[in-house]
């Protein structure tokens, strides 16, 4: 257990010390929120402040950006620089290492979501969450599931040069199609079909349910199932393909 906390601290230290990661991964979603809320954040929709919907969407984006994108980038960079290989010859068990990486990631996702929420409430008149406990649970489910996709992405991408681009190609369009940045009602049908398959739309549905609509997550088991299925698929791919040694040499 001491080893677990030791490594979790090390993970947090490396995350916050790396300014590029902290800015790109941590600050980008809140910044995007402020930008969108400044332009579209006024008024109400179905009796709710529009900014509340933006908070929900940007939290969805934050989960995808951090748990999938940030994690994949971190792991590929560490693998290609030989850190992962070096760690393998220490007594630190590989499973424990990955567990701390995932938990560290989860902490960042939760913290980031609260930053977006706080900005929404304080600056743009968004509501506080209707069902706080379930809201946090949804964040945790989302972070763990998207981390599975992050692991899979890291396992499938060979080079440290490709990973940032690949992650953006995955995360940004998915977020856009899934309604993270605003309504998708006007999208062409074919794009809506794509969004229907991807997990982020369902995560945002769960955030909306617990945050805005005051619905128990038990009413959204289908959405939970889709998010979980993607997450499990990610872990399966990672289990089979993840490697500790540099690929590019």
């Amino acid at each position, binding site marked *: 257990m001491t*080893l677990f906390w*030791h*490594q979790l601290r*090390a993970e947090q*230290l*490396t995350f916050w*010390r*790396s*300014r590029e990661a902290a800015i790109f991964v941590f600050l980008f979603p809140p910044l995007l929120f402020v930008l969108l809320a400044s332009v579209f954040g006024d008024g109400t929709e179905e009796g709710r402040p529009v900014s509340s919907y933006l908070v929900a969407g940007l939290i969805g984006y934050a989960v995808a950006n951090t748990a999938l994108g940030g994690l994949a980038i971190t792991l590929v960079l560490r693998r290609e*620089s*030989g*850190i992962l*290989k*070096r760690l*393998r*010859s*220490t*007594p*630190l*068990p590989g499973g424990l290492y990955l567990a701390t990486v995932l938990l560290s990631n989860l902490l960042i996702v939760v913290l980031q979501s609260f930053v977006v929420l706080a900005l929404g409430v304080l600056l743009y008149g968004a509501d506080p969450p209707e069902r706080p406990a379930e809201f946090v649970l949804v964040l945790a489910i989302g972070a763990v599931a998207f981390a599975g996709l992050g692991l899979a992405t890291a396992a499938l991408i060979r080079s440290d040069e490709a990973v940032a681009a690949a992650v953006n190609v995955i995360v940004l369009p998915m977020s856009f199609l899934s309604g993270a940045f605003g309504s998708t009602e006007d999208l062409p049908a074919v794009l809506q079909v794509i969004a229907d398959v991807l997990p982020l739309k369902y995560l945002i549905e769960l955030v909306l349910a617990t945050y805005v609509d005051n619905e128990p997550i038990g009413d959204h088991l289908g959405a939970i199932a889709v998010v979980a299925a993607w997450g499990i698929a990610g872990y399966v791919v990672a289990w089979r393909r993840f490697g500790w*040694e*540099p690929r590019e*040499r």
Partner: protein
Amino acid sequence: MSAISVTGLRKSYDGVEAVRGIDFEVEAGEVFGLLGPNGAGKTTTVEILEGYRQRDGGEVSVLGFDPGRAERAFRERIGVVLQQSELWPVLTVREVHRIFAGYYSQPRDVDEVIELVGLAEKRDAKVKTLSGGQKRRLDLGVALVGDPELVFLDEPTTGFDPAARRNAWALIRSLRQLGKTVLLTTHYLDEAQQLADRVAVLRAGEIVRIGKPSELIASTTVQIRYRLRGEEVVLETADPTRELHELTARALRDGVELEDLEVRRASLEDVYLALVEDEPE
């Protein structure tokens, strides 16, 4: 007891045999060198002993463990310096040492290790600001911080300038004083001579010589060179006194001059190159 015992070790990649049945033993407290050109199978051998790769055949025992099973108790007792690795660039030298120290049950004092590898002045410097030689010392520091009995050094000075190599050598010699067993790979003959108690010379996945550096590359033949009517003649002989006597007697009798007459022992470098470059019979 041997720290490392290898018998009939084999390993292939995609049908190409990288290691073709090698045997050697490393005694506890010994500095043992695996010497050979690139592609001779040095890194493959070391990575099998470190537990990174599974062997295809043969018996391997490292500190009494089978490294192929990579148990945690085994990893407690080894220290590894990889050929290429770059630790977290944004952390400081001290932070990296502390993180690694936390992985071991009986770590050494972090500041002491930093002192030992000569990074005391860089204690609070970030890894990305270190020079190549300093990064290598950081690698060595984190390999020592768990107080291992056995240290693997895979090409510890490749790419160093001469001064940095001298420093690295002094550091590796100090490991012997700490009582560590060291397995070192290198493609530099002088490095093996300077550091290793015993050396195995690898060529194309096989050990072609094994022994003390002085004996295994001690040349037994002497070259006699001269020019006769403009043509260079080179004689290799194990009996230079007699050969030279007969040669000069003949020359005197015939009244010819042996131009540029020279007698020399083949350099160690010559012998080593002959050893690793010859096609196997």
